[in-house]
């Protein structure tokens, strides 16, 4: 039943969802690591404010985030118009916009997971590496990052899962355009709104469950592989 009713349209929805979730996760990862590291290791002016802004998407209604994105990144918005003029990049009503919405909604989850794992690393290990001749950047790459890897993997998964399920901010910012911005949750919702769409909604829901399970299993496997490595057991 699952495979039977699966046409080009459904595959397109799944592929788009995966792409949006993966791209949003990939592009937010470097920034999340930098933010998490600063929050875990440094005291700076405005730290509380940065912390609050990072966490805002977690507590705001997603529709509000989507609306804010529309205001800022819409073609006439202050950032959106600049991007359009200078780089010819348009985010509103494009799949890249959906990825941006997903990235912002998943960002606090990602930062929290990475921050926790960085905070758990003894900072004196980094000091020891400096005395052995490692520059700040090299110590970060050779000591901090590998030791924080379990948290980074967890954060990446949380962001990816959040991206697969993102609904409110996405539909507000980029609407639901088949083939461009219609991701799994948006399609499932659309099917439930038309008579006789239940079967299709169910099929896509099962796919969503399967995707989530695969992502979870993958991150478990990665975490175990690298966490044992980080503990020094092999």
């Amino acid at each position, binding site marked *: 039943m699952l495979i039977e009713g699966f046409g080009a349209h459904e595959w397109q929805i799944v592929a788009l969802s995966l792409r949006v979730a993966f791209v949003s996760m990939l592009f937010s990862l470097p920034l999340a690591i930098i933010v998490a590291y600063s929050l875990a290791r440094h005291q700076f002016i405005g730290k509380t404010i940065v912390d609050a802004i990072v966490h805002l998407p977690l507590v705001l209604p997603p529709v509000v985030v989507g609306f804010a994105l529309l205001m800022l990144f819409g073609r006439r918005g202050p950032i959106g118009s600049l991007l359009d003029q200078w780089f010819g990049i348009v985010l509103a009503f494009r799949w890249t916009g959906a990825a941006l919405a997903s990235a912002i909604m998943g960002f606090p989850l990602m930062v929290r997971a990475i921050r926790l794992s960085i905070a758990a690393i*003894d900072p004196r290990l980094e*000091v*020891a590496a*400096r005395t*052995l*001749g*490692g520059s700040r950047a*090299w110590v970060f790459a050779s000591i901090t990052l590998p030791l924080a890897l379990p948290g980074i993997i967890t954060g990446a998964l949380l962001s990816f899962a959040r991206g697969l399920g993102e609904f409110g901010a996405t539909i507000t910012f980029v609407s639901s355009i088949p083939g461009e911005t219609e991701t799994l949750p948006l399609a499932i919702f659309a099917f439930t709104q038309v008579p006789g769409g239940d079967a299709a909604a169910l099929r896509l829901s099962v796919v969503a469950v399967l995707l989530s399970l695969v992502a979870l299993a993958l991150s478990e496997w990665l975490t175990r592989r690298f966490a044992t490595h980080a503990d*020094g*057991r092999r």
Partner: protein
Amino acid sequence: MVDVDIEQRRGEFALAVRFVVDAPIVGLFGASGAGKTSVVNAIAGIGKPDRGSISINGTMLFDSVRGIDIPPERRRIGYVFQDALLFPHLDVQRNLLYGQKLCPAVDRFIEPARIVGLLGLDRLLRRAPMTLSGGERQRVAIGRALLAQPRILLMDEPLVALDAARKDEVLEYIERLRDDVRIPIVYVTHSRSEIARLADAVVVLTHGRCTAVGDAESILNDAAMVAATDRYDDAVMIEARVVAHDSSDRLTTLDFDGGQLIVPQLDALPHDRVRVRIRARDVALAISRPIGVSVLNVLPGIVAQIGPRVGASVDVAIAVGNATIRARITQRSLRKLRIGNGHRVHALVKAVSLELRGNRYD
């Protein structure tokens, strides 16, 4: 040569330390909270002093006036921390080579194979730090610091987390390093016995100030050292040389600056240098050479100093040749024997009470 002249204030704690010292192993000695770690951190570039200058073997590492502050990774100062701080995600071999790989090939002078052999690490190379004993971890940490090809090695209480047996094991390796690698070591400790065993020169820190600098023997017997220790320790150190063994009685005769000492037989060859630790409470005094006593060591000397007085007892310093021995006697005995400065006395030291550096009696 280590030339330190720094001032640093952190809240209530003020550090103002100034010393120049040049020795194979410099002991940085003081009670906990005296500022020892702050000083080595400043040398390593981990903590920044408010003012002053630091130079090692003539290379200026820090100078607040000239605005020099070389970052730790370019100072080439090896640092062995109290708790080893091995990288948990790397095996022993990769820990060892971490610093070596970062050092330009032209500056390398210590080979990994040599360090592995010297510190007995060959069977640990594939192991993970988690699985090592405390002593093994410290040995790896020492090897890792040395392979970063440092100008000098700082060791901040490297034995403090170890039990007695492990301490001895690591001490032996440090002695091998001193004799083989010939890299200057600054050894931080609050333990007199570690200073006595390892240090050639000693810098004494008390409440953030440098209260004494000098060669190990004189400092160990100095009042400033006594004042710097948390608990009063009354022992003196005597530098001595092995003369002969008497294997039938299992005794060894030693030669020192004030005569000869007989001690329980030790594992050393004739002419080997040893240090003997004589505790004041193991020394009795007589105003004339006693007869019919079991004590083997009767050393004629002159009373050099009387005091301090603690409770019923008083410590009397006796000049025996060029050496000083301290005796703890009761104040009543002092009075009854009418002992005063400059008087001739005999110090009685039981052979069995003597402790020797660098062997099982330590």
